[in-house]
């Protein structure tokens, strides 16, 4: 394979990989405070993208994206308030089933609100045909936007979880929920914040990828499956793992195109998911002992 072509594949792999990583981080944030997988995570991306597209018809792009992030984040809070917080028996299984139901519901509502047409936000800079030449590989400026935004999200979360009181309390919930309550932390509020936060970063991701991947009422599902695979590969709850896992899966998918028909691209991540679940369910960076104690 010529070098330029290899580079082209690597860029496309890292791009989709960083998207998967953001979806996976969204999974992780909620998993860490509740111990559940929020299967509506993909819908947050769709909602963010769709809302921004609608708003963009009458307001400038940056404002539309900001508003979309805020609205989606509010939806996340609402989901927790209405469906999760009030559960009579908040077992892991019950909550997971609630999120599966929610993902179907949100998709159907989106179908009614927006119909099934494929839409997209305009390219943030340039247009479909603009491209930047990096050492012989041609990439769209939007790819740089995706990489940049992903990097900013990861860095922001790193600072948030390490240095803010709220971030630390969320980590405390992840580490030991009983001890967190005994420290006086209102764990229910932390769950709300985690839903808002992962909805917000999901929406932001949904907006930046919209020009490349297009947005449709049901585009969240496939992203959620990829993100889930990445979260499992990296080790559930581990954000560094999510970034590494995302890039691995993105690269493997991109490379697979050169040896296998394009149609098999999605099969790669499913195959990896199965292999991990059989061989190392705790993921690359997850601790085996810890995984043994988890319900999920």
């Amino acid at each position, binding site marked *: 394979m010529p070098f330029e072509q290899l580079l082209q594949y690597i860029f496309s792999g890292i791009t989709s990989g960083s998207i998967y990583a953001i979806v996976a981080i969204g999974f992780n944030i909620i998993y860490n405070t509740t111990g559940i997988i929020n299967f509506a995570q993909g819908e947050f991306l769709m909602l963010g993208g769709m809302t921004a597209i609608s708003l963009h018809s009458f307001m400038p792009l940056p404002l539309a994206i900001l508003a979309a992030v805020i609205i989606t984040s509010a939806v996340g809070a609402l989901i927790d308030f209405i469906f999760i917080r009030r559960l009579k028996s908040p077992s892991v299984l019950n909550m997971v089933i609630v999120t599966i139901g929610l993902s179907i519901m949100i998709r159907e509502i989106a179908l009614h609100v927006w119909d099934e047409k494929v839409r997209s936000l305009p390219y943030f800079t340039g247009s479909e045909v603009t491209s930047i030449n990096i050492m012989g590989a041609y990439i769209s400026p939007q790819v740089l936007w995706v990489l940049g935004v992903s990097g900013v999200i990861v860095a922001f979360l790193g600072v948030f979880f390490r240095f803010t009181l709220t971030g630390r309390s969320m*980590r*405390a919930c992840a580490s030991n929920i009983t001890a*967190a*309550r*005994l*420290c006086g*932390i209102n764990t229910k509020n932390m769950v709300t914040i985690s839903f808002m936060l992962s909805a917000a970063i999901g929406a932001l991701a949904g907006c930046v990828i919209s020009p490349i991947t297009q947005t449709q009422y049901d585009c969240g599902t496939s992203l959620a499956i990829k993100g889930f695979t990445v979260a499992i590969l990296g080790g559930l709850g581990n954000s560094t793992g999510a970034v590494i896992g995302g890039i691995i899966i993105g690269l493997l998918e991109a490379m697979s195109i050169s040896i296998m028909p394009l149609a098999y691209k999605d099969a790669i991540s499913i195959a990896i998911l199965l292999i991990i679940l059989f061989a190392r369910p705790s993921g690359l960076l997850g601790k085996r002992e810890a995984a043994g104690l988890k319900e999920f």
Partner: protein
Amino acid sequence: MLKIRNLNAGYGKLRVLKGVSLHVAPGEIVTIIGGNGSGKSTLLRTVAGIVRAQEGEIMLGGRDISADEPETIVSAGCSLVPEGRLIFNTMTVRENLSLGAYPRLRGDRKTDLQAELEVIFAMFPRLREREYQLGGTLSGGEQQMLAIGRALMARPRLIMLDEPSMGLAPIIVKNIFEEIRKLRGAGNTILLVEQNARAALRIADRGYVIETGQMVLEGTSEELLNNNDVQRAYLGKEYRSIGE
């Protein structure tokens, strides 16, 4: 300080505490001794709000806290050092301690955290050496110090300790109990649950004996240490005298 009357509590349909009553006066060290499964830990967990009270009242400084959430109870001045320590393994010693002050940090962001950390570090110098180490990498004794320090960071009026000696070497148990004694000297009120009845009664003013969820005996530490039933069941006296 703490007055519990006719408390019933348990897990689901299982009733563990059956009409427990006790009181702790300000400045006292009170210990609850009892065997495995007698309901000692459940009692403390109920006071802390982790286990729901089904009946009865828990008065903390004149207010019934039996229906309150754990975070409210911590803010009301009652902290539990839980059994098994339950420190945050994936966080540093410093982060563990500062989370102990969470309710006050939320209320007033200007709280001088460093000064308060210094107080804990002065009490447990080992924690200062380990300040930036992850909680999970500490030894058992250090983890117990961390758990006590974390609870103290909330500035409680009443500290409840659940089995602080569990799984620790005798010399470390001695240190920990020495620190608990000093805590009282500093004006704290302490409710201590222990399987190590001898060590607990040595530092306590009064004690209660709990069996299958009911208080069967109460008295001053002196009385309990000299009580034949207590000696046989919890102090292993007769076995020792045979040995001698």
